[in-house]
């Protein structure tokens, strides 16, 4: 069996990918709401998001809402596929 994807394998990134995968590829979530769901600090979350974005698993879109800047995060089809593969591999390990 192929090695588990090291990008998803870290606990924080696994939960992050789980949350974004639940949201689906057609939706995006604001940074504060995602942080609230995951119970992570802003700095910690940003670090993990950057790694996943570099791999093409997620997207970060910066928008202006009213007069306030906001960052929306979503999973890409590549990220969904990687997450599905990771889950399948976990089930095979049982």
């Amino acid at each position, binding site marked *: 069996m192929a090695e588990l994807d*090291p990008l998803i394998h870290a606990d924080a990134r*696994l939960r992050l990918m*789980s*949350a974004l995968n639940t949201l689906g590829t*057609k*939706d995006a*979530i*604001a940074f504060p709401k995602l942080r609230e769901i995951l119970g992570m600090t802003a700095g910690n979350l940003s670090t993990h998001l950057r790694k996943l974005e570099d791999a093409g698993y997620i997207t970060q879109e910066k928008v202006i809402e009213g007069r306030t800047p906001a960052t929306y995060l979503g999973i890409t089809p590549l990220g969904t596929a990687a997450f599905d593969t990771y889950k399948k591999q*976990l089930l095979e*390990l049982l």
Partner: protein
Amino acid sequence: MNASSNTEKPFDPRTALAAISTTEATTRKALGPNVTVLYLVWAATYLLGYGLLHATTHGWITLSYPVALLIGATILLGAIIFSAALGIRSGTQIRGDSRFAGMAYGFSWMGGFATVAVFSIAFANLLPDAPQATVGWIINSVAILVVSLMYMAGAAIFQDRPMFVLGACFTVLNVVGLLAGPNLFMAFFALGGPALFIAAALLMRNTSAKEAK
């Protein structure tokens, strides 16, 4: 869980799968309104609204029918405002298809009930001499038709099977109410409506609890 930390704690796929399930359940809860609370509010609304009208029609309480109707409409309006607020709040900080679906679904409810309100006035004006119970019987069957169709349509949009069952049960309840006639339909709605909403609320609560485990 990181490969580098495996020397301290062996990796357990069960723990990882449990973390995925817990996060999925937490995310779903954060993304949508609290449906259990929503159904319980509507259970209370049906019980109070239809219960009040039934009690007034049968002379169980000393209240004129127009006053009972006004109180019922106020209760209904309160439930609509509460539901809309819950829906709007859950959709904040989300962009994309699901937000549009939720917004379109919310406006469909409003459009449906606005039409029922106009129909009610038009129908009552059309038959000014008809007994109030008969007019109410037809108007409420149209209202419940909208409710049942909206739940079934919502089930299709949000892929929510319990919601479809709820809509289908309301269709059956409506048919029963129509067959029961003008004197009994409100009793069926006053008791059947809350029973269906409470069953749906319990089902949703149990499903959420299972997902969180």
